[in-house]
């Protein structure tokens, strides 16, 4: 009996998998031969790679609350934009509420704006993997300045990663 149930379970899983495949391949085939949101080439600085992504003007207030995605086909949600700050050395950092479950248990990390791109209503972190981000220290506000909502900054672009 148990054996039969297990067999049925695996059959169900297999058929579900096929359904997902059937839905998934249509749009995927629509897409480009070149994937979007590739990490910077080795040896290139974040600023140099961001400059290649046609940085566009965007209002800081319009970035707050945006989803931050991983540049992979499944577009995993990494967190949400909480703030944009300027470090004492002048670098612009996006404070991302990173990890957690549906925002619960997320911790703020500071990601250089040049490591991120705009993807329509969302943002992506292209220069760091989730594993690297997990090792980022929790953001400490001391010494940084919050960039006001009406400030226009420039952020690079990417095509969707699917």
């Amino acid at each position, binding site marked *: 009996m148990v054996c039969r149930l297990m067999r049925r379970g695996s059959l169900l899983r297999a058929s579900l998998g*096929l359904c997902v*495949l*059937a*839905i*998934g*391949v*249509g*749009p995927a*085939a*629509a*897409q*480009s*031969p*070149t*994937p*979007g*949101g*590739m990490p910077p080439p080795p040896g290139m600085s974040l600023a140099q790679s961001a400059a*290649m*992504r*046609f940085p*566009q*003007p*965007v*209002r800081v207030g*319009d970035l707050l609350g945006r989803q931050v995605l991983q540049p992979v086909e499944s577009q995993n949600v990494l967190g949400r934009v909480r703030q944009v700050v300027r470090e004492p050395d002048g670098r612009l950092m996006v404070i991302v509420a990173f990890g957690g479950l549906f925002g619960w248990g997320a911790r703020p990390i500071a990601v250089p704006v040049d490591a991120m791109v*705009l*993807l*329509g*209503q969302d943002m992506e972190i292209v220069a760091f993997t989730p594993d690297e981000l997990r090792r980022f220290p929790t953001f400490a506000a001391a010494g940084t300045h919050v960039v006001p909502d009406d400030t226009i900054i420039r952020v*690079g*672009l*990417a*095509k*969707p990663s*699917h």
Partner: protein
Amino acid sequence: MRSPFRPYTLPDASVLAAHKSLIRSLERRGLIRGGLSLGALVMLTGCDVERPESVESALLAISRFNDRVQAWLFDPNRLAPTYPESMILRPPKFNAYYDVTEVKPVDGTSWRLDVAGLVAEKRAWTLPDLQALPQRSMVIQHICVEGWSYIGGWTGVPLRTFLERCGADLRAKYVSFKTADDYPSSIDMATALHPQTLLALKYGDETLADPFGYPVRLRMATKLGYKNPKWITAIEVTNTYPGGFWESKGFPWFAGL
């Protein structure tokens, strides 16, 4: 343990023997088999795997039939929804068949728009020529076949105005486009003459930025995103089916919304 679903009184087993031929003709498994093969055909539509030519041509025939139905349903006077300016996404979402790092900006001063085919005046237009034509603005939704969308604000010359100025044969079937990024595209004349079809020069009241098609791109409120070529360099009015980049890979040509 006794099954809770087991009836207390069981039918006489002789009933099976009495209806043996009927039971055999039910062929429930046959039905399941039939359903499965139909399912397999549906799956083939999206697959990139090797497939019989006949299946592909049958599916393309269905797609062309869908195109004709959509063209028949298209109402040249019905407007797509528009939105308040406050909803415009700035900047818009970038998409192409390659990533943004491969965008090759077009020099607006040396750029020319060639017009060919069934037009009275075959000449090359400059950017100031287009800027001098009557302009129209619209805040519309950009809907991508991939499943995402955003609201954008576009300003430019209605394609109808442009075609009229060129003395185009407005009874021709197609308007086709060539672009600087080698992304050929074409639309039906009814859509070309629709009031929400623009040769867009601006986004959100600013000159189009390089990644979004400077100096001129097509924006239509009535078709999917992939029907809107950027960096247009030539327009042709024709009665010969011109196809397009994704259409040649099996995507629907009409792609109406």
